[in-house]
């Protein structure tokens, strides 16, 4: 990672705790530590893959970065400007620069609104052009994402999952943002459609110098699209590296286990016998020391006591493990 340019997105020590309230007085009796001190940066035209098991807080990171959920602590900078403390109305113009594509192509489009209006909605909210300009722009967007402009008057239910995801992408592109959070954008699609959507996202990135925060649990997809990868476990980043070195030699035991769980397309290949057993512990009461120690095959006594910090092990490569 070179320091010569300011990153497009810079997230520092981000925390999001969801309080658990109980009783008549709604007293806080605990916190769900969904995101517990996450830092990363994304350069223009770069994709950061964020991987981890269900419930590790990766989707929460995506939402907090866009301030769809308010962070509990930490800072978020877009093009060097801190957006963490901004008021709603001050944040509005900045929303043009950052958008999101959701996982579920069915619930991410309002069933009562024509897809053309869905894609045109961001333009309307930000008063871009007049009615005709907007319709032209929407038609262009439709063409760009591989839909026919004459489908603009259709309703979402008339489209397939893949087509709906294209509508979502068109909506996200409408304001020409520099940064898109893609929250598991292909997990709900058929494999053949996944490839099409991934390729569309990659083409768009090349064309428009887009930056993605690509959230996924599918390592094969992440390997294909990402430049760098952050591995998350229980609200923390445990490993952070460029794609090639991460997939060639995972350092953190958790990353190792994740990679070992990827199905190999060749049955004659021998796989390393390394599995993680059990479930992700509760983020309400995470294990002491290293969060991963109860499931780690290499755990030592100090792992139970001392929480490892994310430290540099090679240029642009960080890992949070006492043993590496």
């Amino acid at each position, binding site marked *: 990672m070179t320091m010569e340019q300011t990153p497009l997105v810079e997230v520092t020590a981000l925390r999001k705790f969801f309080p658990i309230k109980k009783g008549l007085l709604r007293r806080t009796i605990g916190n769900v530590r969904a995101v517990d001190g996450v830092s990363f940066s994304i350069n223009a035209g770069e994709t950061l893959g964020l991987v981890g098991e269900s419930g590790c807080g990766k989707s929460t990171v995506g939402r907090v970065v866009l301030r769809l959920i308010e962070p509990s602590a930490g800072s978020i900078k877009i093009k060097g400007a801190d957006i963490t403390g901004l008021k709603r109305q001050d944040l509005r113009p900045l929303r043009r620069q950052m958008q999101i594509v959701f996982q579920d192509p069915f619930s991410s489009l309002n*069933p009562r609104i024509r897809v053309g209006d869905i894609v045109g909605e961001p333009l309307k909210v930000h008063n871009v052009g007049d009615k005709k300009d907007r319709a032209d722009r929407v038609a262009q967007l439709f063409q760009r994402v591989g839909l026919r402009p004459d489908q603009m008057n259709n309703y979402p239910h008339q489209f397939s999952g893949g087509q709906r995801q294209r509508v979502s992408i068109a*909506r996200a592109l409408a304001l020409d943002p520099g940064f898109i959070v893609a929250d598991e954008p292909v997990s709900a699609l058929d494999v053949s459609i996944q490839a099409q959507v991934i390729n569309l996202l990659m083409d768009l990135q090349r064309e428009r110098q887009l930056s993605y925060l690509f959230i996924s649990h599918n390592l094969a997809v992440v390997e294909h699209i990402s430049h760098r990868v952050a591995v998350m476990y229980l609200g923390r980043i445990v490993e952070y590296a460029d794609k090639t070195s991460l997939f060639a030699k995972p350092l953190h035991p958790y990353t190792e286990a994740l990679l070992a769980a990827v199905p190999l397309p060749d049955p004659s290949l021998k796989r390393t016998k390394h599995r993680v057993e059990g479930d992700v512990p509760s983020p309400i009461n995470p294990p002491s020391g290293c969060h991963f120690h109860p499931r780690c095959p290499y755990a030592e006594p100090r792992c139970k006591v001392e929480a490892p910090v994310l430290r540099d092990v090679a240029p642009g490569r960080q890992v949070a493990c006492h043993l590496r």
Partner: protein
Amino acid sequence: MTTNVNTMKFSFMDNVLYQAKRYPLGVAGAIIMTVFVFAALFATTVAPLDPFSTNAKASLAKPGGVFLMGADMMGRDVFSRLIHGARVSLAVALGATCIGSGFGAVIGLACGYIGGWFDLLVQRVTEVMQALPLLVMALVITASLGPSLPNTIIAIAIPLIPTVSRVVRSNVLSLREMPYVEAAKAIGMSEWRIAAIHVLPNTLAPLIVLATAQLGSTILTEASLSFLGLGVPEPYPSWGRMLSESAAEYVRTAPWLVIFPGLAISLVVFGSNLLGDALRDALDPRQRD
């Protein structure tokens, strides 16, 4: 699935005709409702006889001849009284349902959106209101406001608010978490606009069903109120009162006094339900093609 049929913009009339063809039952409901509304609007010209003039000779006259649906104890024409009664009954039914659903929807939306202490407080008030039977509450309200048509409408509308607001609130709570609402936030849409464009239209279906179901019960509540002397003041006929006045005394000797008002009430309830169901489906784009 993606055909070109829907890509052409249809005019409003085309759309109405298209929907009418798809929901014949809805059309039947619409016709029933239109007939009643017309009867109510032009009651003075449509009614063959004066609904107020008494005639001792015609007391309890059987249906047929001048008295199409017979006459009541005081010799007043039942058919004419039914037509005039449609004014009161429909005004109360439509008025109370609209006011009740309208306020209920707004309160439910506010509760679902604002949440917190506001929601907690409103929900407790709603629970207190729901603990009282509809009629008892309507009784208390009319008793304090005094009997008149607008007061009757208000008295019947207020008890409807809790049910509607609860349904809307629970719907809003789930809709607020929908990704398309998040997407709207992500593009910087204001909360008001999100509520109006994304949340409210998606609670329409249960709202319509609820409103059409309530239409019938409002007519019956009005009947009970009138029977107890707290509805629309006396000489003016309402279906409910015509029915309840004669039910006990004349059901054997002059059944037409009970059958015809009962039929009128059932027809309106039936018609509004048919219309409501068809409207709910026709307004949902998922039900097309």
